[in-house]
């Protein structure tokens, strides 16, 4: 693999959930518990997992929208973990985000033009007529009429808003984008447009992307590699096709088997029993052992290390014989 564009090492994020009378944290949730990832330039890494597995938290940590409890983040070789506010501005130009909710991510009091122009103004990249021109070009790039410049978000449909959000993210010409469930809030008929737009941006602009989703089929289509997350830990990471067609971790196998297409292809559907464990009190050993159909006594004692199973394909599972 070439030198990574963005890399995270041993990322940990705790959220306090309870404080005692003295304001000390008495209980906390481990949203992310030691995750290491690297994304190469122009690579799309998918982040899969159930809700509550820490996918969005990782996206926000990578963009430094949240401060990690522990771990390091480096971007293009530079450590950005310790930077704050103005020190982060150059990094913010390079790394952008597209949120899941296109309604909430646009300020209702701002016009579409102002929303797209905001990152450019913040980064001091354009002003006056040039700014207007660039916003016009961006509207065109995401196939929105130029007349939308003075409209307000409430006049647009969900798909149009998401295109505004994408135009906004692209405005500063970033090299890395976190797309946090970019299509799950949209109608199925609109999803394809947005996916095509993302793909086009990637090929045309050479973007690297972290695609957060729970849609394995979509990720197989869009991503180079996929990382599967469970309870804030990476269970398996590998090339998208291999991972989806031949999962090596029991959890990935269960996730993949839940995709309707896979089920039709004659695969056995694995239904996980029980709920995702409480992240404030995760199980000992392998965190997945409470729901794993292949669990054996060792699984509740030993924390499995990430180990290679093929070139560029790693899993955190004690057993070699499954699935």
């Amino acid at each position, binding site marked *: 693999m070439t030198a990574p564009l963005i890399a995270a090492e041993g990322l940990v994020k705790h959220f306090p959930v309870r404080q005692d009378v003295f304001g000390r944290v008495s209980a906390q949730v481990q949203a992310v518990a030691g995750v290491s990832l690297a994304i190469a330039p122009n690579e799309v890494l998918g982040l899969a997992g159930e809700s509550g597995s820490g996918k969005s938290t990782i996206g926000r940590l990578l*963009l430094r*929208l949240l401060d990690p409890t522990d771990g390091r983040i480096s971007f293009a070789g530079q450590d950005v973990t310790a930077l704050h*506010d*103005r020190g*982060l*501005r150059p990094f*913010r*130009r390079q*790394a*952008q*985000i597209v*949120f899941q*909710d296109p309604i*909430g*991510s*646009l*300020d*209702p*009091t*701002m016009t579409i033009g102002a929303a797209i122009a*905001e*990152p450019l103004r*913040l*980064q001091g990249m354009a002003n006056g007529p040039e700014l207007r021109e660039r916003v016009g070009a961006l509207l065109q790039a995401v196939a929105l009429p130029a007349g939308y410049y003075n409209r307000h978000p409430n006049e647009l449909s969900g798909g149009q808003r998401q295109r505004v*959000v994408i135009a*906004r993210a692209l405005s*500063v010409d970033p090299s890395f984008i976190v797309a946090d469930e970019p299509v799950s809030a949209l109608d199925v008929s609109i999803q394809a447009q947005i996916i095509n737009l993302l793909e086009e941006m990637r090929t045309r602009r050479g973007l690297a992307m972290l695609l957060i989703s729970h849609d394995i089929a979509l990720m197989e289509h869009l991503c180079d590699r996929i990382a599967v997350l469970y309870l804030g830990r990476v269970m398996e990471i590998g090339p998208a096709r291999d991972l989806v067609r031949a999962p090596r971790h029991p959890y990935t196998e269960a996730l993949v088997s839940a995709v309707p297409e896979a089920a039709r292809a004659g695969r056995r559907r694995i239904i996980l029993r029980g709920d995702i464990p409480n992240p404030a009190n995760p199980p000992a050993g392998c965190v997945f052992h409470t729901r794993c159909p292949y669990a054996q006594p060792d699984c509740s004692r030993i924390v499995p290390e990430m180990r290679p199973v093929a070139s560029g394909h790693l899993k955190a599972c004690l057993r070699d014989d499954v699935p």
Partner: protein
Amino acid sequence: MTRRACGLVLILAVTFAALFAPLLTAYAPTQTGVFFLAPPDAAHWFGTDDLGRDVLSRVLHGGRASLVIGVGAAFVACVIGVPAGLLAGYCGGRVDLWATQVMNLCIALPGLVLALLITAVTGPSVLNIVLILGFVSWPRVARLVRGQAFLIREALFVEAARAAGADAVWIVPMHILPNVAGVIAAQFALTVAYAIFTSSSLSFLGLGIPPPSPDWGGMVRTGLDYLSINPAMGLAPSAAVGITVLGFYLLGSGTRG
């Protein structure tokens, strides 16, 4: 008609009457006459007061002071309250804790009593009353703005702005303020109503604008003594206070928060 429209009509009517008072009456508000305490008739619609002055003219002219005091006090309240509320709501944590305690302390003290005390010390003048009522009203504005800022701070579009490189200096004026503007406008109108009512109460208690300037609260106070001779002398300024306060109240409570 909506509450807001009703309020607006009342406010416009009062403002019009106060602004064009000299054109609407034949008498100057301080012009005395020989017919004192006359009951209402065709020449003096609300009769005359104890010094023979036309009550209608005094009620209309008195609206000027009330409106200036009301709007001025609400302005002062917003000038202090909006930044304080934004700061507390956006910063959160320790800043918010202290700001909230100060607000609650001020809200716990009854506004009228506080205003009475300060006015007694500083002496009544239009400027003093504006400043004092503004000072008494700012915590309500601040508390409201704080709550809204606290909510909007968590909005996704604020996080999106941060992801684009924005800091507090950008986010507060560009995102938080425009989104609390509606609430501020509503609270502004309510504060005007409160300030007019409270300033009239102060005048009624003898701490109003010094005579002979016409002043609603003071007129009600004097009118009370002659209620049986010319009832309109006390009732007309009371009604004027009522209509004005109602107008601003309707406007404020009808505006979407």
